[in-house]
C-alpha cells in the first residue's frame, strides 16, 4: 500500500519553520497542561450534554439509562453491532440512542457535541483496557 504525504501538510510544515513557530521539538510542561485542559473542557461540556444538556425532543437524557456513562462500553468499539448488521463506531450507537429513546435528531459524527459526548463517556471509563469487538 502506497501512502502519499498530502502536499498541504508539507506546505504547512515549511510555513511554520519560516515563521519561527516550534516544530516537532520536545513538548513542554505548558503543552502538557494545555492538552489536559482542552480535553477536560470537552469532558465537562460532554458531561452537561449527557445530563440533559443535549436538545431532546421528549426530555429524556442519556444519564437516565447510563448513570456515570455506564453500560456503554466505549472500549469495545468499533464492534459488530448485531442490531445494525455491521461493524459500527461508538458515534453511530450514540446517534441510535438520540433517535430512539430521545426521539430526537442525530448529530453529525464530527459535530462538536458528538466529540464532547465521547470525551465524557471515555473519561468515565478511564483505566479499562481496550477490548475491540467485544460484545
Amino acid at each position, binding site marked *: 500500500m502506497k501512502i502519499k504525504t498530502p502536499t498541504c501538510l508539507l506546505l504547512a510544515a515549511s510555513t511554520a519553520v519560516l515563521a519561527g513557530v516550534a516544530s516537532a521539538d520536545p513538548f513542554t510542561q505548558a503543552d502538557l497542561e494545555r492538552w489536559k485542559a482542552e480535553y477536560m473542557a470537552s469532558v465537562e461540556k460532554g458531561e452537561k450534554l449527557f445530563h440533559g444538556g443535549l436538545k431532546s425532543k421528549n426530555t429524556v437524557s442519556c444519564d437516565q*439509562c447510563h448513570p456515570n456513562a*455506564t453500560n456503554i462500553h466505549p472500549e469495545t468499539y468499533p464492534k459488530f453491532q448485531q442490531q445494525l448488521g455491521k461493524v459500527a463506531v461508538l458515534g453511530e450507537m450514540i446517534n441510535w440512542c438520540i433517535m430512539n*429513546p430521545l426521539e430526537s435528531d442525530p448529530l453529525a459524527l464530527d459535530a462538536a457535541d458528538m466529540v464532547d459526548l465521547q470525551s465524557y463517556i471515555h473519561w468515565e471509563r478511564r483505566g479499562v483496557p481496550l477490548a475491540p469487538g467485544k460484545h
Partner: protein
Amino acid sequence: MSKSINRREFLKRGSALLAAGSLPLSLVEVAFGKNDPENFTFAYLSDSHITHIKGKEFVRNWDRGLIRAIAETNLLDPRPDFVFYGGDIAQLGKPEEIDHGLEILSGLRGDVHYVMGEHDYYLDLGDYWRKQLGPDHYSFDHKGVHFVVLNSILTYDDWVNKWGGPMERMQQMARLDNPQGSPFMVGEAQRQWLKQDLEKVDKNTPVVVLSHSPLQKIYKGWNFWTDDAEQVQALLKPFRKVSVLYGHVHQIQYNQIGNISFNSAMATAWPWPYPSSYKQAASYLPKLTVEMNRADPFFERDATGWQFINMHTGNVDVHYLLPDNQNRVVAFDRKAGHPADTKFQPVADRIPPQTHY
C-alpha cells in the same frame, strides 16, 4: 377520552398475550397450596417514571411499559390478593405526571397499595402524592402476614432546603449519578412509628416491609442506599421471617442479612446498569445476586418488567415477568436459608448475558 383509549389498549394487549400464551399461568397455580388457607399471591409493579413533555404529551416508551405491566397483571389467574406499587410513578413529581400515571394504574384489577419514591416526592415534598393516595407510611395485616410500608427516600433538611426552588431540588434528586446528591433515609420519626407498630406483632408472624430504596447499603453514589438501614434492620431483627421488597434500582437484586430477606423490583420504564460496571468507584452488590440479563436496547421493554409474589412459605418467592426476555424466579430456599434463583443460582448454570462489565 384518553382513559377509553387506554382501556381499549389493555384489552387489545391482553388478548394478544393470551393468544401467545406468554404468561406462566401454571406457575401461579403451583404457588397456591389448595389445603393451606394462608397461601396467597400479590403483584408488585414499580418505577414507571411517567414523564410529562408538554401539553398532553408524555414519553411514549415509559407509558407503554406501565400499560403492558398492567395488562399482564390483569391476566393473572387465580387473581393476586392485591397489588403493590413500589414508587416513582412520576419522573419530576409533577401533578400532570402523577395524574397520568394514576389514570393508567386505574386499569389495574384489584386493590393497590402505594409506596413513595423520590421522583414522586422532591417537587412538593410529597404533598400531591399524599393528597391523591393517602399516608406515605402505614401497615396492615393480611392472611397472617404483617405488611409495613415505609417512606425511605427522605433525606437531611439541610439538603432539602439548600436549593433555589422546588423544581431545582426535584431535578437534583432525579439525577441518579449526582455528585451533589444526598443519601436516602427512613428517619427518626418513622423509625419510632415502626417500633411502636411492631410492638403489637407476634414474633412468629411473617413481616413484609416495602420501601422504595433498599434498606441495605449497596452503592451510595447512585443512592442504592438507605443511610439508617442498620437501625431499621435492628427493629426487624426479633422477627422470625422478614422480607424487604424495594424498587428504585431497576434491576434484579436479592440478599439475606440475618433473618431478613431482600428482593428488588424491576422497573416498568427502563433498566439500570449494576453499580459494579462503574469503574471509578467501589460498590457492594450482594454476592447472592445472579444479575439480570444485559439489556438489548433495540427491544425497548428488554430488562424491564414486573413481579408477582407468593407467600406460601411465609417468605416471599418473587416471579420476575420480563417482556422480551426469559422470566426469572427467585424463591426463598428453606434449606440454604436465603433467596436463590431457581434456575441460575449454581455458577455453572449461569449464561453469558448475566455477565455485566
